């Protein structure tokens, strides 16, 4: 199994693992940000260039460094490879440039965007962006396209990650969703403004890292940080959907249903449109418990970790905390 060193952390990974995956195995402190890569979507990644890393040693056999930064999501590790991510100031400067490029034509309409609070571009800009923009021209705008009653497309916010195109290609059975035009005029669209109608089309919302594709049934209902996420399931008739979802409550009302997401913000399992858009009553679901939300997320300010997770966290850090919690830990 090849061994790779990322920012000084060595890890042994199965053959065929990409640098990004290896970095994620080490932990979030070395994992490069990724806006377009999505583990569950084949051929995704490589477009946004935020995950670029510097390969200072190609492999044990060929120790030469790679001449340019590489997209870590699409570069497989080689045995003896050495990679710099956060430890290379050049690379961080280059990434800052990429983030700037992503932001210059983004409308920054976060105050009225449903994605705000769970937007990957917000996180990315916060971590790697500048305080002020150097772009002084009119930002790009697109004509609004109606793509159906469930999904709202706001192309002006799009950063062209192509994830939704991959969903349309790989998850849904009838592709009517793709890219028109080229260059900075390129836009995500449904072919001649067809309405996307198939059982899994709602997943484009979950994969969208920004607010370009949002849930029309949730539109302007609430800021996400005023809602409480709960894990739930139901018996779904759809062959490809197992009915395991995340419900977003405000009081007793289910405002939104999404797929469950892992710590990298990726859906654990894609869900069908019936579960996502049609089952908005609490009685439709069997509630499992609160969803784990990272304490870095703004959503957690209104929320909490599940009790078990909190217990695990506390027990993990008990030495640092300087006290030994009782076995029957209470969170009050």
């Amino acid at each position: 199994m090849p061994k790779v060193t990322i920012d000084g952390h060595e890890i042994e990974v199965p053959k065929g693992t990409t640098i990004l995956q290896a970095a994620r195995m080490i932990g979030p402190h070395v994992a490069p940000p990724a806006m377009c890569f999505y583990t569950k979507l084949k051929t995704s990644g490589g477009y946004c260039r935020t995950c670029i890393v510097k390969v200072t040693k190609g492999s044990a056999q060929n120790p030469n460094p790679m001449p340019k930064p590489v997209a870590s999501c699409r570069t497989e590790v080689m045995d003896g490879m050495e990679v710099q991510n956060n430890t290379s100031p050049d690379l961080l400067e280059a990434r800052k440039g990429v983030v700037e490029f992503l932001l210059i034509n983004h409308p920054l309409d976060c105050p009225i965007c449903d994605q705000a609070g769970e937007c990957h571009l917000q996180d990315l800009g916060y971590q790697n962006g500048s305080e002020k923009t150097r772009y002084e021209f009119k930002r790009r705008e697109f004509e609004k396209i109606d793509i159906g009653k469930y999904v709202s497309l706001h192309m002006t916010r799009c950063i062209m990650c192509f994830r939704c195109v991959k969903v349309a290609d790989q998850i849904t059975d009838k592709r009517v969703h793709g890219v028109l035009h080229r260059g900075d005029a390129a836009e995500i669209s449904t072919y001649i403004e067809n309405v996307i109608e198939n059982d899994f089309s709602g997943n484009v919302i979950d994969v969208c890292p920004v607010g370009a594709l949002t849930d029309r049934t949730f539109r302007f209902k609430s800021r996400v940080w005023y809602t409480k996420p709960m894990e739930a399931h139901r018996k779904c008739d759809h062959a490809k959907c197992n009915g395991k979802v995340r419900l977003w409550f405000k009081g007793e009302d289910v405002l939104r249903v999404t797929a469950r997401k892992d710590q990298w913000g990726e859906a654990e399992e894609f869900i069908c449109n019936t579960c996502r858009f049609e089952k908005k009553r609490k009685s439709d679901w069997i509630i499992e418990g609160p969803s784990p939300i990272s304490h870095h997320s703004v959503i957690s300010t209104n929320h909490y970790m599940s009790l078990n997770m909190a217990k695990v966290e506390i027990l993990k850090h008990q030495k640092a905390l300087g006290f030994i919690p009782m076995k029957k830990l209470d969170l009050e």
Partner: protein
Amino acid sequence: MGKKLLIHNDHVPGIHTLDVYRAHGGYASVEKALKTMTPDQVTDEVKKSGLRGRGGAGFPTGLKWSFLAKPEGVARYLVCNADESEPGTFKDRYLMEKIPHALIEGMITSSYALGAKKSYIYIRGEYFYVARILEAALAEAYAAGFLGENILGSGFSHDCYVQVGAGAYICGEETALIESLEGKRGNPRIKPPFPAVQGVWACPTVVNNVETIAAVVPIVNEGGEAYAKIGVGKSTGTKLISASGHINKPGVYEIELGITVEDFIFSDEYCGGIKGGRKLKAVVAGGSSVPILPAELILRTAKGEPRLMTYESLGDGGFITGTMLGSGGFIVMDETTSIVKNLWNFTRFYHHESCGQCSPCREGTGWMEKILNKILAGKGNLSDVDLLWDIQSKIEGKTICPLGEAAAWPVAAAIRHFRAEFEEYVKNPSSIKDVKHYYRLNNLVEA
């Protein structure tokens, strides 16, 4: 007169027809290769010749061929890149238009060396009429038995197809070309896998420029060693140069690699000097994407040696004082040329041609164009020049395909060598002629 190997017969009437082409020694390489040589021997001759890719990168062709994966039972393909879209480059068009059989002959011989049963000529949409010429030539070659089943009784069968693109610069990038050839959107693929492993229809593929493939013909005919004797060092053979700009005799010239740049610009055999007796200001030596060089640096290297028309000599000094031979699009500018306006034109082109896949190129090219627009509309600041420099450095090397570099290099070189001109435009907007023209184009800068 230098030796000519590719377009020596271009003046012969009717050379585009098979009969006249045959009468002038055409298809001899096919007969020689198929009847007397093994595929490996052909590849060896190409390796010995030192032939380097004529499309721009200058990668050794023999080496590229030897990288071709040859798994059992999997088809291999040869693809000819005739999507000649680099501004300032028009040599392939000339070759295909005048002597289409030279390309087809090279395709057959090269395919034999590579073991490719099918090959494609991917030609840009704007060359529609050239595609018709090629198709007529292909029909003649089929009728004469140089294409099809069991060519010349050798047991080697080959089919060659012409595919017309839809007119996108990006489809000259080899993986975008392959995507387009397969009927998809012409977006560059992420490498690896390289086309030598997974190219057309996921099969091993070699993509070569028109001129490279045509050069295989004299290499097989006269032997790789004879070819390698022409030229200097690692730049062997002859090269077609598309000369344009402020020169007395613009056109396509076949040169022996190794003549001096001064000779090429000023001798009557080639460009014939600067138009109107004006002074030489700058040269873009290899198509719009290579760095521009001022007169003193294009004629002599930083060390003071005469600059030669070779890959090495033009590249001498890296990008600080050198440039690249590139595709051979030789654009000459006299003292009346505004470098800023020229750069604006190039940048506008790359902005228009960016495919939109990866962020630095999609957003950065447009941004650079807008800043140049602003400067040319007389609204620039000194900080804009620094900003341009910073943007190009953030595009270069961060993109999926070389279009990012192609857009960044001209900006970097123009600022490096002609910064004073940018500053003059910023400090003294009244020195910009036809500001109104840029103002109109420039609806993005507010008044």
